[in-house]
């Protein structure tokens, strides 16, 4: 199980690096699916089978399929050409340095002087029953708030995504009737 975790971690890191360097969006999306499947394996190794299933079904299955649909709707051939013009090696230097500094800081804090060193994740696996009991017992208020957030997201996405007439900004067919 330990070896599987490190293998999945390596796959996730390589796939994520490929995601952020691709020019073609569909390629990046497919690599992101690989990365999230690898993270799901890591969840399984950490004793969280319910989270691993959710990662596959919701992240890789639903959210990224939504991305794929939108990319197909947008027809982004021109964006790839535009981006390939300015996305040179120099464009990566500044953000990469900033990211490395922050990463070094976090890793240093994690490994030095926090008392984390040597603690292992070898507790008992937490199954779906325990998660469900916590979700609808202790955290029921937060669960309802998450439901309201999803409703707000649904209404917001519908409002932003509806088709409008270019001249008035009204939805088609409402102002003319």
């Amino acid at each position, binding site marked *: 199980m330990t070896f599987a*975790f490190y293998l999945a971690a390596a796959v996730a890191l390589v796939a994520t690096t490929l995601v952020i360097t691709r020019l073609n969006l569909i390629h*990046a999306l497919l690599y992101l699916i690989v990365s999230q499947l690898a993270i799901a394996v890591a969840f399984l190794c950490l004793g969280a089978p319910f989270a691993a299933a959710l990662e596959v079904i919701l992240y890789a299955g639903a959210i990224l399929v939504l991305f794929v649909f939108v990319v197909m709707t947008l027809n982004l051939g021109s964006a790839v050409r535009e981006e390939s013009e300015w996305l040179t090696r120099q464009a990566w230097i500044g953000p990469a340095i900033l*990211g490395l500094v922050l990463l070094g800081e976090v890793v240093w804090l994690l490994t030095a002087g926090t008392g984390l060193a040597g603690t292992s994740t070898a*507790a008992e696996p*937490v199954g779906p029953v325990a*998660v469900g009991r*916590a979700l609808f017992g202790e955290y029921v208020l937060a669960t309802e708030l998450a439901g309201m957030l999803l409703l707000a997201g649904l209404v917001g996405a519908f409002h932003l995504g509806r088709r409008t007439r270019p001249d008035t900004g009204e939805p088609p067919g409402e102002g003319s009737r």
Partner: protein
Amino acid sequence: MSSVPLEHVLVLAALLFALGVVALLVRRNAVFMLLAIEIMLNAAGLAFIAAGARWGQPAGQVMFVFILAMAAAEVAVGLALVIRLRRLFGTVDTDAAGEMKG
């Protein structure tokens, strides 16, 4: 179960988060910026799962479920904004939306 040290999992989460930050800073394509946010949220979820596994509590997975719900709502609104951007400016380059009108 596995005996992966906690700090190794947290370092993996930090690495994934840093990759997301770099992508968010470098890219100007709005869809790629949303992907970078997804990567960062995923890394945060991994840290929660690791903490839950450390103490054998379901709270870590509960927080992961909340992050998942939040990511779904964020992606729906974000992609609607991208479609809007494309309709208004004919591009998904976020620099096109640099003016405060329309």
